């Protein structure tokens, strides 16, 4: 490689250069090589201006049309010899930024001058001379319009000069080309355009209003100055600075006073030499690419975004503990509601369990009838092999290793420095995301720096990736992947597996974009959708480029946080836990798909098979209802679309109405297993699927709460009312009247699954009563407000006008288990007669009591798994007087094992509302630790979405005491001692409110509805 002048060994922020002869030999050359390195520079924030005499179409065709993405906004084309400047906004078409337009008078004069010059030469020589008129702001006079010299290459310039001079002088023009210049300049002066620019490329004399000096002025004034780029950071490159036939070269026009201090370099032949400040290096376009490559190396490879540094927004992996890998993968999952992907190590490890899940795509495992979320391909798998040695944590030594979940931007980061067994040190940085702006896109970027070695590195990505998968349930998935490699000198598309040379200290970045499409077999648009994976990806890349896709994703998360961030001042751990909850809840919901719901572990792990429980309706939905109503609506529409299966289920069990599945997947049918093998070897029958019938009322509660909060009448009319009515019909058929004249619900299992066959479970009965009351209310409301729609619905549901009366009668006569003398609610009939086993000796336990003492013993005791009566205090606090609320909470709190992750959050919320903030805080922290503690191992199969929703409820409904009344939302705060301030947005009846409270318990709510004087 030729040595470079020292001034080319520093980085320039702005490059301006000639095109023909400098960047390319001619316009037929493939410009891919120079484009790759220029794109690399554009991505590194270097500003680039092409300065050319030709028109924009020629440069677009040869060069710039192939550049796509936001980095293109740093490119300008200064065309037509200083008369135009084009810029870009990231999309492909060029945008005219500046144009010098000749006046009619100037235009006439240009034509006249050109004709005069032509006539003068013809008169003197008798040679055929042609004027080329159709040029913007200029006229070209062809001095040698012969077939031989129709389109001479730059390399033939000396021969061309000889031919032109011989032609002119031989025909009697003794001064040759110089004389033609003089004729042209004189004509300009005499015919009224004394400032016209006369230039020549030897074949032509050109008379115009602008030249490249105008281009450079624009570069200086409109690119450099607004960005405070000093002249010394401007590098100008051309090939014709020196004189040609005694006249200054065309690029010499770029040496303008306004650019003093910039560096000027000529890569041309320059037979006449160059004058300072121009430095001649020669070498033509290859040398120009060498200069660009050197610049690219001086500008480090960077990521399209930077990690969030604020510790309140990140969850960071502690010291690397290989055995924790499964839970780390779950915690660091990325998702967007359509697709979720575990935060597995890209290269894998012995304990890696990489998985990508697509919401709603279920299949039965071999030999099983239980549908589970399909584990999609490990699209993020990348294995680098350095001179035959795989780069892996299991070989050599991890000098540093850290994964960071950047919740603010929805990005998983990885930082890793590794010394392999041969002593080679490699630094790896990576990011991964599931686009929230375009839910079908996943992205990954890995930057690798060989710190102390060079040589060949082989890279293999997702070798086992099947590009299309079809489940036994008739759902097809298609994946499409595009890889880009950005090295020090180029940015180019690469295959999934490739080998590249690396140099010490240089950084190489692999960008990968993945598109996922799904379709149900038989859908008319299915095949199109599947084939669309490739097209979707290419379209997204063409439209936005990788940087644009990342940018849109980050902006989508900004919008998310505006709508649902709970800000806590004074308690960093609580702050992080709440953001962790919001991050995962939002990552699990797809407001655009009303045929899927959120499973117990969302899209973060295979746990629970992706099945949907009451967790979604009672624990998660309040978060969505209050912050992301569109997601809440979609989740409830899943219940509506599975109503038919719920009706079938009720019918099969001999009841009317609709009984929702305890566990549901894609169809709404119950998919609860009938039995399982416990770790002690015992085969245990599972009764939840048939006995936990409270879920039907839970769904109705979620429907009603959403409607009350959102005022989404269209939802109530189209779907919600039908759910409430059908679930009420189930209870009406399920309850039996006994000799005490009360209505009883017998043979059920409540939320407390330690007692799996009980009569008159309090939670079930109270929820059923509420469901019946709401059904009666909604039929009245519907008939009154939307009579026409009601008639249609009533007909379709074969509604009997007597039904509301019966529902009210049932609700009023429902057995509630309240002791009238104390207000204590008995959890189920006979509960108070069980062994009052004291939990105090087990206070330090970290294991459920069923494990410590056995299921049989616990079933005979008053120890309960999770809130049942306390759940009622949470959902319907107004239904019991304050003293009874306190009594019931204390009674059951002492007997609750919290053997479910759903449990402590509800106790936190209820304790906070009762004013026992210390106890509430303890339960809040217990909930926060469920996924984030390092030693629980609970999160290996996915994070606990019910608990995450519960955590939000504990903070917002508990500590902040959010309630609504006739005058809108209000707070009754009971903040923990170190919470100085708590603020959060809510959505209520179509308006956004900012809620705030502080340590003094002062509460404010600001929102549109409050402008009329509400508190």
């Amino acid at each position, binding site marked *: 490689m030729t040595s470079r002048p020292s001034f080319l060994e520093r980085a320039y922020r702005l490059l301006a250069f000639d095109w023909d002869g400098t960047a390319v030999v001619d316009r037929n050359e493939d410009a891919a090589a120079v484009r790759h390195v220029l794109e690399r520079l554009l991505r590194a924030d270097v500003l680039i201006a092409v300065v050319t005499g030709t028109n924009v179409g020629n440069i677009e065709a040869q060069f710039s049309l192939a550049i796509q993405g936001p980095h293109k906004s740093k490119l300008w084309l200064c065309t037509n010899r200083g008369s135009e400047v084009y810029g870009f906004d990231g999309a492909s078409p060029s945008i005219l930024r500046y144009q010098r337009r000749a006046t009619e008078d100037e235009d006439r004069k240009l034509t006249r001058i050109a004709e005069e010059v032509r006539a003068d030469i013809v008169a003197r020589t008798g040679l055929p001379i042609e004027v080329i008129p159709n040029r913007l702001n200029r006229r070209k006079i062809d001095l040698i319009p012969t077939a031989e010299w129709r389109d001479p290459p730059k390399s033939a310039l000396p021969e061309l000069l000889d031919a032109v001079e011989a032609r002119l002088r031989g025909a009697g023009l003794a001064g040759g080309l110089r004389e033609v210049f003089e004729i042209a300049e004189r004509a300009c002066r005499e015919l009224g355009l004394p400032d016209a620019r006369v230039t020549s490329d030897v074949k032509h004399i050109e008379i115009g209003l602008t030249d490249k000096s105008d281009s450079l002025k624009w570069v200086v004034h409109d690119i450099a100055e607004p960005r405070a780029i000093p002249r010394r950071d401007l590098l100008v490159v051309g090939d014709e600075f020196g004189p040609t036939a005694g006249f200054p070269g065309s690029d010499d026009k770029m040496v303008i006073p306004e650019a003093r201090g910039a560096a000027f370099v000529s890569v041309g032949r320059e037979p006449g030499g160059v004058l300072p400040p121009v430095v001649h290096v020669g070498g033509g376009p290859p040398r120009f690419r060498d200069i660009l490559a050197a610049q690219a190396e001086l500008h480090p490879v960077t990521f399209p975004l930077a990690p969030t540094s604020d510790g309140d927004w990140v969850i960071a992996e*502690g*010291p690397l*503990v*290989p*055995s*924790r890998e*499964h839970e780390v993968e779950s915690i660091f999952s990325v998702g967007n509601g359509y697709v979720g992907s575990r935060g597995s190590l890209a290269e894998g490890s*012995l*304990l890696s369990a990489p998985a990508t899940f697509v919401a709603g795509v279920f299949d039965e495992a071999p030999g099983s009838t239980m549908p589970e979320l399909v584990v999609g391909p490990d699209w993020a798998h990348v294995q680098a092999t350095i001179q035959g040695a795989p780069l892996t944590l299991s070989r050599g030594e991890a000098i540093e290793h850290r994964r960071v979940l950047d919740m603010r931007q929805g990005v998983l980061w990885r930082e890793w420095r590794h010394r392999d067994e041969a002593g080679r040190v490699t630094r790896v940085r990576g990011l991964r995301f599931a686009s929230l702006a375009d839910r079908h896109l996943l992205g990954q970027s890995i930057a690798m720096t060989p710190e102390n070695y060079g040589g060949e590195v082989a890279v293999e990505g997702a070798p086992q990736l099947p590009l299309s998968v079809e489940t036994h349930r008739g759902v097809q998935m298609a994946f499409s992947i595009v890889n880009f490699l950005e090295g020090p000198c180029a940015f180019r598309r690469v295959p999934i597996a490739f080998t590249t040379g690396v140099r010490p200290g240089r950084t190489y970045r692999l960008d990968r974009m993945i598109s996922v499409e799904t379709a149900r077999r038989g859908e008319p648009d299915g095949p199109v959708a599947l084939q669309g994976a490739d097209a979707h990806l290419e379209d997204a890349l063409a439209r936005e480029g990788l940087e644009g896709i990342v940018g849109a994703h980050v902006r989508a998360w900004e919008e998310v946080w505006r709508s649902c961030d709970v800000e806590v001042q004074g308690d960093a751990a609580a702050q992080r836990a709440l953001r962790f909850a919001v991050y995962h809840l939002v990552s699990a919901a797809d407001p655009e798909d009303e045929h899927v719901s959120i499973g*117990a572990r969302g899209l973060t792990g295979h*746990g*629970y*098979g992706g*099945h949907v*429980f009451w967790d979604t309706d009672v624990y998660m939905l309040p978060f969505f209802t209050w912050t992301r109503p569109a997601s809440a609506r979609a989740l409830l529409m899943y219940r509506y679309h599975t109503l038919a299966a719920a009706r079938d289920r009720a019918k099969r069990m001999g009841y009317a109405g609709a009984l929702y599945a305890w*566990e549901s997947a894609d169809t709404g049918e119950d998919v*609860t*297993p009938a*039995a*399982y*093998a*416990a*770790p*002690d*070897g015992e085969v*245990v029958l*599972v009764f*939840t699927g048939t006995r936990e019938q409270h879920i039907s009322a839970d769904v109705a509660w979620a429907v009603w709460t959403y409607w009350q909060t959102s005022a989404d009448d269209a939802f109530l009319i189209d779907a919600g009312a039908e759910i409430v009515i059908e679930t009420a019909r189930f209870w009406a058929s399920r309850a039996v009247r006994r000799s005490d004249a009360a209505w009883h619900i017998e043979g059920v299992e409540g939320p407390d*699954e330690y007692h799996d066959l009980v009569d008159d479970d309090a939670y079930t009965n109270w929820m059923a009563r509420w469901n019946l009351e709401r059904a009666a209310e909604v039929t009245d409301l519907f008939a009154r407000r939307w009579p026409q729609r009601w008639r249609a619905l009533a007909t379709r549901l074969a509604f009997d006008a007597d039904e509301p009366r019966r529902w009210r009668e049932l609700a009023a006569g429902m057995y509630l288990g309240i002791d009238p003398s104390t207000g204590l609610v008995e959890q189920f009939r006979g509960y108070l007669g069980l062994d009052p086993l004291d939990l105090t000796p*087990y206070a*330090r*336990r*970290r*294991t*459920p009591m*069923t*494990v*410590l*003492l*056995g299921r049989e013993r616990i079933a005979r005791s008053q120890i309960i798994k999770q809130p049942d009566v306390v759940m009622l205090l949470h959902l319907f606090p107004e239904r019991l007087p304050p003293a009874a609320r306190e009594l019931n909470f204390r009674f059951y709190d002492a007997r609750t094992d*919290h*053997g*479910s*992750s*759903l*449990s402590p959050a509800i106790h936190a919320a209820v304790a906070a509302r009762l004013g026992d903030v210390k106890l509430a805080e303890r339960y809040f922290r217990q909930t926060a630790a*469920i996924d984030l503690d*390092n*030693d*629980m*191992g*609970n999160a*290996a*199969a996915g994070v*606990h979405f*019910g608990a995450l929703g519960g955590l939000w409820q504990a903070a917002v409904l508990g500590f902040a005491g959010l309630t609504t009344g006739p005058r809108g939302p209000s707070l009754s705060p009971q903040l923990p001692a170190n919470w100085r301030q708590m603020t959060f947005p809510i959505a209520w009846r179509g308006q956004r409110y900012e809620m705030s409270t502080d340590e003094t318990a002062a509460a404010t709510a600001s929102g549109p509805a409050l402008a009329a004087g509400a508190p």
Partner: protein
Amino acid sequence: MIEPRVVLAPLDGSCAAASALPIARALAQAWDVSLHVVHIAPGGDARAALDLAPELGLDPADVGNVVLDERVGDAGEAIVRAADEWRDPVIVLCSRTGAHAELPTLGPVSARVLARCRYPVVIVPPHRGRQPWALRVMLVPHVGTPTASCATALAMDLARRVAATVRVLHVACPRDAPPREPGALATPRYVDQQHHEWPAWAKEFVDRLALATFPPPSLRLALVHGEPASAIRTFAAEHQVDLIVLCSHRDLDPGRATVLLGVLRDAPAPVLVLPYD
């Protein structure tokens, strides 16, 4: 994991001591290492191997496959010294012999060997006799820590070599706090839906355990509750295991190593004690 290079079987000529021999022989065969039978004489000169064999009750077939050695001095110390002379031995000895045969757990020799040696030691119950022994089912009680997984790697390797099934046993103890070691997996705090949670937990437990030994042997996890030593003994007896594997710091001072000593008390099978460092 350090692979054994020799199996040492200290014998004193008693029937009880000889009960270690079938286990020692099978282990030497499994690891493909030599079996050294060591006799400790209280005084005098060490004798030649041929003179020693009849006294130790070794029949001609036994002698052909073992290296015989006699040391002089305190039995416990002499065994420790003999072990130190060999690199990476596994010691197989009877828990108690002679006058100490009726002690509940360890005799003075096995206690000293166990406390002083940093090598794997197999403690054989004195009453098992000399009937043949084969390793088909191994019981590995496990507290769920990565350290325990590393410590049991030798046993896992042994099981894989002889295609034995490993029954991994986790004992949930009401009074014990779960281990705080990073990466430890105790019984789950939350069992939201038992039919989903327990299989997932069991798989996770086994996956983490297998991390220390790749490829792992055939593993089956069991969870019981109660006092650990008793639960381990009961499980071993009920499932007719051939070898119990325990990790121990081997601090046998009063009040320490309660699980180890509790299992050794009337252990229904030989116990492989692995250093837990």
